[in-house]
């Protein structure tokens, strides 16, 4: 594998990638929604050979003491060994926790879901939104695939019926009420390899990159979350350049999300 880095560097210096893409091209992206009958909202995202399933489930629970009138958002990623020989059984790995937390922040910080509309009874009962991300095949860039799946699934999420007298959720009865989604954050993840910048790394590229930068952007061109990864550094100029790229690419990604 050590031979790959000089080869990839040489290609990137010429504005090329080993799969024929230009540095700031994504692989083919396909998004389907409403694919899991039991979920309140669901999506399947393919970025090249990377495949991710995302399911949204709602339940009713107690709000956090510091936000007694707001619903609760939880994002979780399960890196099952199903999807890659490098994933292991056992408690959540650092990678799976980072993956879910970066996607969580992209959604939470821009108030993509209007959590204030999810209060049933202040201090006592609010809707809890669980987003579960399951990679099916990891060929790199699970971050962007997971984030796309999360927002696509949220957009299609319907609230289950809540029986106020019995104070319980009727999980098998969906209402026609949509989850209040008001922003569409999308995540774009860049790699830096021997000084060259590019987007949407494959698994082979991910193994060679020096640094990684994920930026979540929303419709108005602002960023709602960032995360640097990898052991190499980034310059301030690079961060600014990539923020612009993220906004530009984000517009294209947002168009791929089905309206239902």
């Amino acid at each position, binding site marked *: 594998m050590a031979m790959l880095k000089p080869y990839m560097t040489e290609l990137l210096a010429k504005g090329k990638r080993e799969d024929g893409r230009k540095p700031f091209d994504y692989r083919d992206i396909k998004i389907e929604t409403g694919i899991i009958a039991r979920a309140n909202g669901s999506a399947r995202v393919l970025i090249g050979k990377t495949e991710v*399933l995302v399911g949204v489930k709602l339940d009713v629970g107690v709000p956090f003491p510091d936000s007694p009138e707001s619903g609760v958002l939880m994002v979780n990623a399960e890196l099952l*060994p199903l999807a890659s020989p490098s994933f292991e059984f056992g408690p959540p790995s650092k990678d799976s926790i980072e993956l879910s937390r970066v996607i969580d922040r992209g959604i939470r910080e821009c108030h993509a879901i209007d959590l204030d509309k999810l209060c049933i009874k202040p201090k006592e009962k609010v809707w809890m939104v669980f987003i579960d991300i399951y990679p099916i095949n990891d*060929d790199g860039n699970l971050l962007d695939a997971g984030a796309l799946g999360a927002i696509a699934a949220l957009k299609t999420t319907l609230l289950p019926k809540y029986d106020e007298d019995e104070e319980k959720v009727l999980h098998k009865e969906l209402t026609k009420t949509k989850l209040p989604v008001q922003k569409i954050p999308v995540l774009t993840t860049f790699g830096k390899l021997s000084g060259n910048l590019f987007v949407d790394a494959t698994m082979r590229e991910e193994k060679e990159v020096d640094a990684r930068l994920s930026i979540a952007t929303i419709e108005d061109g602002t960023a709602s979350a960032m995360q640097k990864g990898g052991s190499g550094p980034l310059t301030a100029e690079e961060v600014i350049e990539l923020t612009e790229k993220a906004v530009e690419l984000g517009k294209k990604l947002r168009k791929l999300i089905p309206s239902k």
Partner: protein
Amino acid sequence: MGSKVGAPEKLIVNGKRLDGRKANEMREMEIEVGVIPNADGSAIVTLGGTKVICSVYGPKEVLPRRNLDTEQAFLNCVYGMASFSTSERVRPGPNRRSTEISKVIADALAPAIFMERYAGMEITVIMEIINANAGTRTAAINAASVALADAGIEMRDLVCSIASGKADGTLMLDLFEPEDNFGEVDMPIAILPRTKEITLLQMDGILTKAESKKLIDMSIKACEEIYEIQKKALQKKYATETQQETE
């Protein structure tokens, strides 16, 4: 019946089941082979509303080493349910139910594999339920068996599996959710289709000897149908590959 909350009044109406099936009728089954590029073998099985995805990795090094068996393969089967696969969200990760199911699935698959040919090696079979509507362990076995074949693991036979049971006093094949939840008997079975030997058998409920026989016969017949669907799914993948190679 009747004592359980949410139970429908009847599970059989005018001689038909709530989804319109006859007693000995199976839900539609679809199998697709080779769905996970990273895996050595993989498959998706859809049985009515139940959907399971399975990947096989191996034969490979045994990790951790304490699982190493110098006489035969270490067959590591892991069954799990995606958190969004059920009506109420399930906590991700293994629990007592999934651990037991993983064990009986390994025992169901092992007789089909030439285990001694993989002495000192591991074969990992991971089955994840994407959407659950009863019969998840049997769907998982059907998926695992074709995924093992897809991985090129040497096998005596495929393994075919189906659940049958009793609801509203009627013996029936392939229970779906209301029958599974509110019926009287659930009996999942797996067989090696060529010899009709049984490799998985579980039952909960009360059955007479005659009823047991009837359910086993009904299941074996259904497994013969499943065997054909499995073979077709494998042929479909490999026929296409061979065609592409010769072109």
